[in-house]
């Protein structure tokens, strides 16, 4: 069967406006975690977040969008998506073709407008806002699809924090089954009162910049980002520039608790194992891992256990959430882009703010920027509802 190749990538996060800027920050160990400032909240000025510093108005201006109903999530998505399709050299005719699909993920969607949503949803006597059709997760996809005139299948996936990993997996399957010849896959989420207060209520937001896999970790930082990949079948790529081969993917459910992972990391173990099976690889073939690594008490310990169970001694790994924050629906795609960069440049990035290993597992993430031979890299994403997914990218 024809291989699924990555022909374009785009990323917009707290550490950079585009893929090159993101890579530069990763190389130099430059974190994007800073104090929340872009919207009014009781946590503005105090809560550390992976915030994109540009305001929504600035994003509208730079994107040339004047539609009053467009949301921050859609604007972040558009910028990253444009980079990916330009990188892949997709023409307007190709975008309009019925065999070009767009598979997008979002968990916040238009809920970044938490206050506007409150007024509209409670129908409190004011006239409806311009955002009446912008609140749901699909609104981002529909905006992108309409703006870029995508002619083929469109879909939106929400499996919480693993959403865009599943968007990639779904897009790859559409190609395999011939429902599309090229797919644009990825996700976007922006910071929102809704998610900040949700994670706060769960007591898993850290008051300080997060410390993934550190024994003293105190929780996660939320972030915002958009990241997209263009996938095409090898037979259609000819002499096109290609980054990597989407070699395997695995999806599992931890079936343990709505908002935490089982002690032995059953779901994480299963999705990594299934990704290896799909890629026809063994654990020893994996050269590096971009871990889910949210820096919560529960995630990092259970993910470590699952990695030890599968790999014995895991290959070099790190969580780039120390740079970008946890970007929720964008995380799977953003970290897929980072994994592809590791593969392309044969390098490994420094884990930030790591001091001491977790006592029961003893795992130590990659310490510094260095060159690293990478043929196969794994990227993990786990979410609420037990939704776990793992992707494997391989050198072409």
């Amino acid at each position, binding site marked *: 069967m024809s291989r699924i190749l990555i022909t374009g990538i785009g990323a917009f996060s707290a550490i950079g406006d585009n893929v090159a800027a993101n890579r530069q920050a990763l190389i130099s160990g430059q974190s994007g975690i800073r104090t929340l400032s872009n919207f009014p*909240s*009781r*946590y503005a000025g105090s809560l550390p977040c992976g915030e994109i510093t540009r305001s929504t108005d600035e994003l509208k201006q730079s994107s040339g969008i004047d539609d009053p109903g467009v949301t921050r999530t859609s604007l972040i998505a558009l910028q990253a998506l444009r980079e990916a399709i330009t990188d892949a050299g997709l023409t307007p005719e190709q975008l309009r073709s019925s065999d070009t699909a767009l598979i997008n993920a979002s*968990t916040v969607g238009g809920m970044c407008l938490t206050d506007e*949503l*409150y007024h*509209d*949803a*409670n*129908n409190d006597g004011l*006239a*409806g806002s311009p955002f*009446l*059709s912008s*609140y*749901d*997760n*699909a*609104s981002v996809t*529909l905006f992108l*699809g*309409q703006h870029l005139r*995508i002619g083929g*299948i*469109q*879909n*939106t*996936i*929400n*499996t*919480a924090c693993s959403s865009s990993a599943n968007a990639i997996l*779904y897009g790859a*399957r*559409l190609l395999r*089954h011939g*429902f599309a010849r090229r797919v644009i896959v990825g996700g976007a989420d922006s910071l929102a*009162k*809704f998610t*900040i*207060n*949700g994670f*706060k*209520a*769960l007591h898993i937001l850290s008051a300080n910049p997060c410390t993934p896999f550190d024994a003293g970790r105190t929780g996660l930082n939320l972030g915002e980002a958009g990241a997209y990949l263009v996938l095409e079948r090898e037979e259609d790529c000819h002499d096109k520039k290609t980054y990597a081969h989407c070699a395997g993917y695995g*999806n*599992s*459910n*931890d*079936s*343990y608790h*709505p*908002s935490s992972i089982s002690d032995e990391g*059953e*779901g994480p173990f*299963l999705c990594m194992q299934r990704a290896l099976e799909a890629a026809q690889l063994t654990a020893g073939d994996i050269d590096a891992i971009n871990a889910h690594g949210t820096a919560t008490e529960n995630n990092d310990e259970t993910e470590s256990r699952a990695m030890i169970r599968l790999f014995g001694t895991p290959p070099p790994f790190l969580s780039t959430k120390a740079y970008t924050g946890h970007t929720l629906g964008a995380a799977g795609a953003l970290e897929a882009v980072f994994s592809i960069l590791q593969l392309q440049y044969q390098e490994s990035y420094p884990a930030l703010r790591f001091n001491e290993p977790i006592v029961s597992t003893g795992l130590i993430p990659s310490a510094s920027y260095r060159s690293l031979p990478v043929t196969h890299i794994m990227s993990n994403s786990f*979410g*609420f*509802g*037990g*939704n776990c997914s793992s992707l494997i990218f391989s050198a072409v």
Partner: protein
Amino acid sequence: MYIHYHNCIFPQQTALPGGLDTLLPADGNQLKAIEPSYDGVPPGLLRRMGKAVRMGTGTALPLLKDLRPDGIIIGTANGGMEDCIRFLNQIIDYDEGMLTPGNFVQSTPNAIAGQLGLMTRNQCYNITHVHRGLSFEQALLDAAMLSMEHPHRNYLVGAVDEIADYNYNIDLLGGWYKKHPQQNKDLYEANSPGSIAGEGAVMLVVNGQPEEAVARLRAIRSWHGTNPDDARTNIEAFLQQYTDGNIPLLITGENGDNRLLPYYETCEKLLPGSAVGRFKHMSGEYPTAAGIALWLTCRLFEGEALPHHFYKKGKENTAGPVLIYNTYKGEQHSLILLSKK
């Protein structure tokens, strides 16, 4: 892909044969689901579930008593809206003060699939499609691909959405529900914009094996855009590609909104010999309502007569293919072709 088992909770009686003959009325332009007693779900757990999670799990669990699917694939535009607005109101009303996380966790659209995975200890493929009015169609396509990848495995595929103040108010403000009181029995005579709100859950067990199947999914197509010419082109191309033009029954998503009627009339004109059925006076309008049309088709294929009030034109009396055409707000469209074998 073949459909083997099905179950449904929606605003009409589904438990007994002939239960659909008596049309239950809407209240305040809303048709609310008739929920069963949910025997077998622990009461403590049931109390904590929002309606979408309750309907979704309550529809699926009876199908999973003796069957362990290799995938749980849910289509829902909104998931737990009731919990979502409860949490939203907490945030604003308490000015981001001390909040309880229960509603937040239940408000994520993947809570239905997640809860099903949890309750049935199912660690297989688990996914939630949330593409508004095409969420269910994407779940079906996902299940169809899985059935081709592994024909002998069973998959649970479902459509769930609830009415909550949240989406009712937003869609009311958006002009998608009628501003005047509207009885569902006269829904199609209103000749005004907007529909009435509905909700429901449909669950199917599918695989790649024809033996003893209730129905076969022969083809599915979706497209976006309000252009009526696109609708005509897509329907024509679909009919040409997948049928010989003989479709004894067309089920449309006609919903009493006179702005959407032209799309459905276009489809009806392309199939002049077909009987035409409608269902949104039973279900109300909601993003995954196409699931109801599919469920009704399964009942028809099993030999149950659909009620008189279902038929707009003619009456289906053969076991030939059934075409379902639905549009959500004129922006998202789908065609689903089913046959008995």
